[in-house]
């Protein structure tokens, strides 16, 4: 029959959402872990998941089936996380971001002249083939561990910027911090993560 796709290959059934009753079991844990990564607080993370499901329920009619149900939910959750930050920032002002990472800045990475200490802190030549590294579960365990070492505010801005790819303006607005403070926080987060990865993954024994 001309013009009609053969059912076996060309025609793909448009994706439909599953019964919302099953969402908690299907996606609850996954969304919760994603939320924990950003908000680092069980109660807040549960709240974010709940807000996400309720918003998804309302937006159900607009699901076009272009992404999987899960990535659709994750997309909604991003907005809910930003909302959550807005709320908590209003309720409890951000601590002085400078104080948050001050100790990390004077951590002896550089000598008095501001240069790397050879054989101690100078970045090693990481092995090539980053793709290979990313396939290994160990790498993700280490990265997770290193993220866990960051002070909460620092981990939050890092996740919003690098994981959720929010613009710096959006993050400043949601977290109510100046862009100068944001850049300092991001710098310290990246510096610490790099150092931690190098120590744990690429084998520089701690100085």
């Amino acid at each position, binding site marked *: 029959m001309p013009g009609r796709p053969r059912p076996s290959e060309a025609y793909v059934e448009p994706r439909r959402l599953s019964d*919302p*009753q099953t*969402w*908690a*079991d299907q996606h*609850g*844990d*996954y969304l*919760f*872990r*994603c939320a*924990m*990564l950003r908000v680092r607080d069980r109660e807040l993370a*549960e709240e974010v*998941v*709940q807000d996400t*499901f*309720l918003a998804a*329920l309302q937006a159900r009619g607009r699901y076009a089936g272009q992404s999987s149900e899960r990535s659709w939910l994750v997309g909604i959750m991003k907005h809910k996380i930003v909302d959550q930050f807005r709320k908590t920032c209003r309720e409890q002002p951000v601590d002085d971001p400078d104080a948050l990472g001050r100790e990390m800045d004077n951590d002896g*990475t*550089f000598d008095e*002249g*501001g*240069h*790397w200490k050879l054989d101690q802190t*100078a*970045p*090693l*030549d*990481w092995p090539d083939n*980053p793709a290979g590294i*990313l396939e290994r*579960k160990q*790498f*993700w*365990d280490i*990265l*997770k561990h290193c*993220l866990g070492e960051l002070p909460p505010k620092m981990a939050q801005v890092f996740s919003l*910027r*690098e*994981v959720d*790819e929010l613009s*710096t303006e959006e993050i400043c607005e949601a977290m109510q911090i100046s*862009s100068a403070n*944001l*850049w300092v926080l*991001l*710098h310290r987060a*990246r*510096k610490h*993560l*790099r150092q931690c*990865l*190098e120590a744990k993954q690429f084998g520089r024994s701690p100085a």
Partner: protein
Amino acid sequence: MIKLFYSCAEATRLISDAMDRSLPVGGRIKLRAHLFICRFCDRYRRQLQFLRAAVRWDISRLVEPQTDPSGLSPEAKERLRRRLSAHSE
């Protein structure tokens, strides 16, 4: 005195900044000059980019149950189920 070169401490700060904003032309040139002569800062720059690529590549790896066994408590799940059914009617 105008400093001609950045220290590594300054350079690392600007390497990070450059990932979030465009640096003024002068700063960009001085940073490039520093990276040209300092292989450690050049490595640092590449490693930060690797870090960015890694988390953007597949964040789900960070929240896989094998990496992260945590999840919602059974009570929280029950609450969610109840709220979802209350709202979907």
